């Protein structure tokens, strides 16, 4: 008898579930509410440049007068992974956090479409002749999200926090923005209470003092500003965990939107900041949702999603489908990440690896790849266009130099552009003495010994994984025998790339192109730990140094010229085989208007975005 009760319960609960489901079905489409903006502009506070837009904003009624931006509406944007909930710019760690911070915080200066610095929170600036002093004149009507005015004290506070002795131990990694300033060491070590590198001249003027003439002063001072009045009195170690670094509604910036609500791992709600200094945002807000990449196109199609942008965008495989949707606008631009075949010119000794020493003098030469003609032959052997066309549906470009194509440092006329030329590759190898003496179809080294290059690659990036066998085949065509080894998971692979007392010759990896400043020293200078190629070349080092050497390098043209010279040298020496940079594909609801398309993305002037609400 008991059991019949059980059945009754089961049937009841199942039917209850069905009813719930049926009821729930219809309110589904209202997930993006666009009714009545919370607060219509009074029209008085503005100069009246958009008064016609304000008048039609009071009801859901269509704005009849076509054209003008309409007020109101929320959009839903998607990203594929959740941010790590560190919303303090000086501590943030991942690209997903950066995605939110792009809307909530601002810097003194920002990059324009040619990768030059233009005003943002600073309306103007002045450099002294030897580029040791940079004076910023700040915008005067900027307020923080809590209404407090933005002043020079906030700038001082931001930079002194990064210079603080507790900063790195608390999780910060961005000391590159302070270590060239006067008095950094003293302040870090607690020998003085004032950070001399940043001087507050008056409420709206701030002066940066560099210890030595600086070639990239704007870049070094382009860090997002955090509010002094919110964090005042806290130690830097306590800032990491402070609610104002963590909790929605308590994170204060100067940006057009404020993070007002969130649900861990799922939703992050940005609400328009009505007193934004460049003018109140047209949208009511942006809701970021964490979504699975494979359902993204379907959600865009159904209008459940209005935008997909940083950090991964639309995968190349989905481009055709997304681009074909009537209600979606797409924009593609070069991604700043690129892929390459690394060539291990030298290996470190086991001892150096053990002790973490990167000293070119101790390196062991990798004889297999020393002849420059061999490396050039590799370039000629590869059909890189084919990789971009075949593996990426053409949504990418062959990389020739480690600078973004839109950058002032990039000049295609300055260097050798390699295209596949099997004949040339064979010629070069013959010339270098690498000849097939055994008749097995593969070349032996000039001494007649077997010559096999090991290729190691990581999993995790599908296109990159698929390039490995292509490389093996195309190198094989010209007689270079490649031993393609089992792929490893990314963390393991890169650990070995770094600890390289191994038999590695070739490896696949990626770097990101420098966007803030093109100075390649970080990856290319011989003694830099990130010089994973272990390429030791004095000519390259000299050019890299020359390009940032004061006072010549104060002149942008001089730097551009030097970088052209350096790129020409690099393309001739082939220290690595540049493969491709993929395209960044952004997609957004076609009803969303006035989105700025820039090589750096589409987030510029997001306060101007507006939704055409027909």
């Amino acid at each position, binding site marked *: 008898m008991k*059991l019949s009760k059980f059945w009754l319960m089961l049937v009841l609960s199942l039917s209850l579930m069905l009813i719930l*489901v049926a009821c729930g079905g219809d309110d*589904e489409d209202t997930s993006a509410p666009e009714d009545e903006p919370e607060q219509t502009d009074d029209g008085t506070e503005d100069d009246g440049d958009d008064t016609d837009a304000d008048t039609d904003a009071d009801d859901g009624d269509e704005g009849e007068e076509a054209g003008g931006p309409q007020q109101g509406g929320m959009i839903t944007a998607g990203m594929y992974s959740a941010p*790590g909930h560190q919303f303090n710019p000086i501590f943030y760690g991942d690209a997903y956090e950066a995605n939110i911070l792009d809307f909530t915080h601002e810097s003194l200066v920002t990059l324009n479409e040619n990768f030059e610095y233009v005003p943002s929170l600073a309306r103007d600036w002045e450099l002294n002749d030897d580029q040791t002093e940079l004076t910023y004149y700040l915008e005067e009507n900027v307020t923080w999200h809590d209404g407090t005015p933005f002043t020079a004290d906030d700038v001082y506070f931001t930079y002194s926090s990064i210079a603080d002795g507790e900063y*790195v131990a608390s999780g910060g990694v961005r000391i590159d923005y302070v270590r060239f300033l006067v008095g950094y060491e003293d302040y870090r070590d607690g020998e003085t209470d004032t950070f001399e590198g940043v001087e507050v001249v008056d409420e709206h003027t701030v002066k940066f003092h560099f210890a030595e003439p600086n070639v990239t002063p704007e870049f070094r001072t382009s860090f997002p500003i955090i509010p002094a009045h919110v964090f005042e009195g806290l130690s830097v170690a306590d800032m990491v965990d402070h609610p104002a670094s963590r909790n929605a509604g308590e994170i204060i910036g100067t940006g057009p939107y404020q993070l007002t609500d969130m649900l861990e791992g799922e*939703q992050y709600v940005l609400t328009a900041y009505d007193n934004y200094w460049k003018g109140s945002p047209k949208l009511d807000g942006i809701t970021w949702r964490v979504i699975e990449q*494979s359902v993204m196109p379907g959600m865009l199609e159904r209008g459940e999603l209005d935008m997909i942008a940083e950090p991964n965008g639309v995968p190349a495989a989905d481009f055709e489908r997304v681009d074909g949707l009537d209600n979606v606008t797409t924009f593609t631009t070069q991604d700043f990440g690129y892929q390459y075949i690394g060539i291990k010119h030298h290996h470190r000794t086991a001892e150096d690896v053990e002790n973490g020493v990167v000293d070119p003098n101790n390196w062991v030469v990798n004889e297999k790849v020393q002849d420059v003609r061999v490396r050039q032959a590799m370039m000629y052997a590869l059909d890189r266009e084919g990789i971009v066309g075949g593996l990426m549906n053409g949504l990418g470009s062959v990389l020739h130099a480690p600078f973004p194509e839109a950058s002032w440092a990039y000049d295609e006329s300055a260097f050798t552009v390699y295209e596949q030329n099997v004949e040339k590759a064979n010629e070069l190898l013959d010339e270098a003495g690498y000849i097939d003496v055994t008749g097995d179809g593969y070349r032996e080294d000039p001494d007649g010994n077997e010559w096999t290059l090991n290729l190691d690659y990581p999993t995790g990036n599908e296109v990159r994984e698929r390039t490995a066998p292509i490389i093996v085949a195309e190198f094989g065509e010209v007689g270079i025998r490649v031993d393609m080894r089992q792929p490893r998971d990314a*963390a393991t692979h890169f650990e070995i790339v770094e600890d390289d007392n191994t038999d590695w010759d070739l490896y696949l990896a990626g770097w990101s192109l420098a966007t803030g400043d093109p100075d390649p020293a970080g990856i290319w200078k011989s003694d830099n730990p990130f010089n994973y190629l272990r390429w030791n070349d004095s000519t390259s080092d000299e050019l890299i140094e020359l390009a940032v050497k004061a006072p010549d390098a104060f002149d942008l043209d001089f730097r551009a010229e030097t970088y052209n010279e350096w790129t020409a040298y690099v393309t001739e020496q082939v220290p690595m085989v540049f493969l491709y940079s993929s395209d960044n594909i952004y997609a957004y609801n076609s009803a969303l208007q006035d989105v700025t398309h820039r090589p750096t993305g589409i987030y510029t002037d997001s306060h101007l975005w507006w939704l055409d609400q027909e």
Partner: protein
Amino acid sequence: MHKYIIRRILQFIPMLFLITIVVFALAKAAPGDVLSGERLDPNIPAEVYDMRREALGLNDHITVQYWNWLSSVATGDLGTSMQYTGRSVAELINARVMNTVYLSLFALGVTLAFAIPIGIYSATRKYSLFDYGATTFAFLGLATPNFFAGLLAIYVFGFMLGWFPSQGTVSTVGLSGMELFLDKLKHLVLPGFTLGLASTASYMRYMRTEILEVKGSDFIRTAKAKGLSNHSVLYKHTLRNALLPIITLLGLEFGTLLSGAIITERVFSYPGLGQLFLTSVQNRDYPVIMAINLILAITILIGNLLADIFYAVVDPRIRYD
């Protein structure tokens, strides 16, 4: 019985200790750490990463690291995440554990609600059309990868029919009360059924086999000979005995409840422990890996204990002393 339980719980301690050592050693044996790999930003000087390693204690000897971890856990502090700057592990787990529990319970409910009745029905009508149909379904269910079933469910019920939301646990933030409950329930349907139906197949087969086995035993023949009705024989005698192995299975399943369903959580963007575990392993976030493993180990041990105790309650033949 009490003595038995206490003895079992005391056995947990050395076992957990061993488990943590093994997991820690294995996790550390994998190359790389939270600061290596493609997370590197070339704009940040390499020495900063070294300073961070030093600060995180990653340069210490493995035994020192283990000891530091153990002594902080002993005081109830699960530590601080390495991939999420400055976030405590407890906070990360807290934010997700309930999602996982809801999903697992819902899926378990689905499994039982389908597996038991279908199993019984199949067994009582052995080799009928229904039985064959159910068997086919069972093997289809076993053979379908979770991510595929999940995507199919999203496509059909989420996109084509538009009945259920497909991503996340709620539609908007700021709901409360009944509204929130219903919204959460709606978001549970697709992942819950995907997960639940996948294990329905095996449970159903167990159920069917068990009933057939019990039906053939002597005491059932006796019951029938007594002149009991078919209904009474099936539900009072057969089912009760056939459910015993299912209880053992459930006890074992208890542990996997918390481990979440990595794939299913991912497809439905359902933020649970499974997703957290996956990213922690990828990023070599040891404190989180260790904490989740510890929780898992404890729940599995408790699950087994509960199964044993419950077994004794249900089956009068079993006595612990």
